[in-house]
């Protein structure tokens, strides 16, 4: 079977892609997607190592993570909606009335 290190590398790669996207994209939705990527990187680990350790803890937890991610997106979309209403745009760098 595939040694666990590879899973780690894969998840790390995915996580980094997520961070990269989140740092480079200014669109709120893309920001959200990047976060999803990072969460999934976590999920990869959980599933893989749940297999490695031979228990289902990781896999069950993954389900929770997915659910929470969904809930997060729900809230997020709501906020992005009002953001659009108030700033006429979903560019996250627009909202800078408060700083310093």
């Amino acid at each position, binding site marked *: 079977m595939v040694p*666990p290190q590879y899973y*780690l590398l894969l*998840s790390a790669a995915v*996580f980094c892609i*997520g961070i990269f996207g*989140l740092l480079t994209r200014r669109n*709120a939705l893309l*920001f*959200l997607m990047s*976060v999803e990527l*990072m*969460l999934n*990187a*976590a*999920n*990869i*680990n*959980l599933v*893989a*190592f*749940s297999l*490695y*350790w031979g*228990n289902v*803890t*990781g896999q*069950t*937890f993954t389900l*929770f*993570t997915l659910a*929470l991610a969904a*809930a*997060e997106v729900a*809230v*997020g979309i*709501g*906020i*992005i909606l*009002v*953001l659009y*209403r*108030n*700033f006429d745009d979903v560019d*996250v760098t627009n*909202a*800078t*009335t*408060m*700083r310093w």
Partner: protein
Amino acid sequence: MTPLQTLPEWAATAPAIVLALTGLALLLIDTIDPDSTNNGLLAGTATLGALAAGGIAGWFLINGTGMESTGGAISLYGDALVVDGMSLFFTLIFTSVAAMVTVASYDYLADEAHQGEFYSLVIFATTGMTLMGMSNSLATVFISLELASLPSYALVAFLKKDRGSIEAGLKYFLIGALSSAVFAFGISLVFAVTGSLVLPEVAASLAEGTELVGVLGLGVLMIAGGFAFKTASVPFHFWAPEAYEGAPAPVSAFLSSASKAAGFAVAFRVFTVAFPLETVTAVGGGSVDWSLLFAVLAVVTMTLGNFAAATQNNVKRMLAYSSIGHAGYALIGLAAITTDGGAANGDVLGASMAHLFVYGFMNTGAFLFIAMVEKWGLGRTFEDYNGIASKAPIAASAMTVFMFSLAGLPPFGGFFSKYALFESAIGSGFWWLAAVGAVNSALSLFYYSRVVKAMWIEEPSKPLEIGSQPVGLYVAIIFAAVGTVLLLPGFQPVIETAQTVAAALF
């Protein structure tokens, strides 16, 4: 002998249950007639629920539920949750803050829509925090943390017409999402190393050692990051100033007091139970010395918070930064833990908890005063506060108490809690941490007294008019002020309880 023995074990989670039911009840009330906004009823229900939960928690504390006196911590659902002194102590903080906030909101929201949602969100968030205090497995930790966070995002962005509120909500949410992702990844890494999520088991498997020390270290760091977000500590603090400034003031109070405390509650448990220092510092040739990590975070956080607060023109934002500074103080509780600390560890952790307790009163009170000023429509800058004392001496006196107490001046509660913190830090050999803290509180005095100066000494630039005398806000503020003052002579039980329950973790 205590009456609790007669109850089933799950009853130990009563506070959380009560809160959850209250939240549902609020939604129910709101659905029964969604149009008329019966503010009083909603606020009353929410407050009652919070007070009930708090009362139960207090009762449990007095009866020693989940403490040595009654046979130790009560762990439930396959060790996913645990009810012990610490969780109850923190529950007390969350519920009292929640109660103050809901009472204050009665006036603050008087002419806002969606009050039902507001109160239920507050209560659900409180429920999440309570669970955070109880959670004994990284899974429940993550879930309860999200349960606390998601309502908070919504609450911050509650004023849908107010750009500030929206911007605050956005930033809070985005940073929150990022942090939770980091947090989840950290959990996954720890799982990868230990193959378990239940805190004691994690510790156990770590005790057997591992070759993936690097992964473990990364995981621990990322988990710490997740908590840093919740407690608004560097480098995950960026959301805090804007969120606190933009959010409705009661929400700011709620987040900066309760939510912060929740973050510490879960952090304390995870790091002391899952990653016992003596274990992780000797794991497979590596040394994941997280107390060092927190020492660094503590110093950076308190310094950054205080320095940034010193030059603000906006009282609310100043308080936001000061609350970052206080996160730094509280971090000493983790930073000053040593492998051979023994009782000293319990003392410093307990002192940190006691500080959070007092902070719950003085900081909430301060933000609620701001809520009142906003209610009066006077604005948020120092200039807008000029001469308030001449119009509202009582409220101004209360605010003065909060400010000086936050600065750690006698004769107020903040003095003893801060002293206890630094004293116990010295006691476990971290005198330099205490020194840094002392220097910072010296600086903090400057900007706190600016508020007092504005209220009492400055002349109002424009003739200031104070319309209503909001009852709910006054009640909440005076309650907080009285609490802050009484916590000086009455500090004994607080610190005693805190340090006893903290000692139980080691």
